């Protein structure tokens, strides 16, 4: 780390490659419930934080307590972020599939034709079709779909909304 503070690129790569598996192991040990990609996000976050505050390392002091303190604080920050987000986020996927009101219940709807739906989806513009496929057919999360398509969560939400409106229009015409 001392060499890295002096701008030694090779020493820095060596250090980061050596500590990454240990950091990953700690993150995995403390956040067993997370998916692999989320664990990797946390590991990267810790590496970025280490890089940003590398001037705070005192070469006269041991390296591991310094690294562990950053890891501990970043994990706690991530947990706080998650709790905050969970408190404000409505899990739309978990809403009841149907409601008691007959007007909202599609069980008896006349347009429950899988082939018509498939064709209507195929007729959608590519962006909307991809969004529907990833989020509704393959049941990916918004985060996963955004990563896979290289777009933003906001853009995906808008595409899904437009696609559902278009599908509703197309299917109601066919009745």
């Amino acid at each position: 780390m001392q060499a890295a503070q002096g701008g030694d690129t090779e020493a820095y790569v060596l250090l980061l490659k050596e500590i990454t598996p240990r950091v990953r192991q700690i993150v995995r040990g403390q956040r067993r419930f997370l998916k692999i990609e989320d664990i990797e996000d946390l590991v990267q976050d810790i590496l970025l934080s280490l890089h940003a505050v590398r001037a705070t390392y005192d070469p006269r002091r041991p390296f591991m307590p310094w690294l562990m303190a950053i890891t501990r604080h970043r994990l706690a920050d991530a947990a706080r972020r998650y709790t905050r987000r969970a408190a404000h986020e409505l899990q739309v996927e978990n809403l009841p599939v149907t409601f008691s009101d007959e007007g909202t219940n599609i069980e008896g709807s006349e347009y429950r034709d899988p082939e018509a739906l498939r064709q209507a989806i195929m007729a959608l513009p590519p962006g909307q079709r991809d969004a529907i496929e990833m989020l509704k057919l393959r049941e990916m999360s918004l985060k996963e779909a955004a990563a896979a398509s290289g777009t933003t969560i906001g853009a995906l939400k808008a595409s899904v909304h437009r696609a559902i409106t278009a599908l509703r229009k197309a299917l109601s015409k066919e009745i």
Partner: protein
Amino acid sequence: MTMDTEKLIERLAEAVEPVRPLSRPWARTAAWLLAAIPYVALVVLAVSPRADLLAKASEWRYLVEQLAALATGIAAAAAAFATTIPGYDRRILFLPALPLAIWLGSLGEGCVQDWIQFGPDGLSLRPDWFCFPAIVLVGAVPAIAMAVMLRRGAPLTPHITTALGGLAAAGLGNFGLRLFHSQDASLMVLVWQVGTVFILTAFAAWAGQYLLNWRSIVGTTPR
């Protein structure tokens, strides 16, 4: 996963530039005092020191209160700097507790003495709005210097760090104030001056989330 970790390591290594390791907290405290004390002295001279300053300097109570206020500021500064060093012993957080206790204790004892000597009149409380802007004025440059220095560290505990930084600047501000403001009644000092110090400390604690956060420093790192 936003990107491959291996790629991130390569990018970080490409971006690595030589950095000067931060000095130890006590050395940084000394550097902060070097910037702050001349400013405090300048303000005291500009406002003009109190006429009875020499006489007050021989009063033990005044000396104890002033030394305790100064020591609180210095200890709080050292603790604030220590909280920005990952892995530093957290017990240093309690360092300002002793001088603060002496400061509050001497003022409390002063209140009791005033009560014994003058009865209820000795504990009369009058408005003294001058204290707040005066402490803000004297503590302004120390506070700015503290904020700049703290931002070079790691934002591990933003609220605690800035609260300690605020206590350091406000403690120094109060020390300076009593060099030109002739208000020595213990209850008045306790309520208006120490009260101002606590209000400024609380404000600094609140501002911690905006002043020190990972978002602002990690955001400048190449991803």
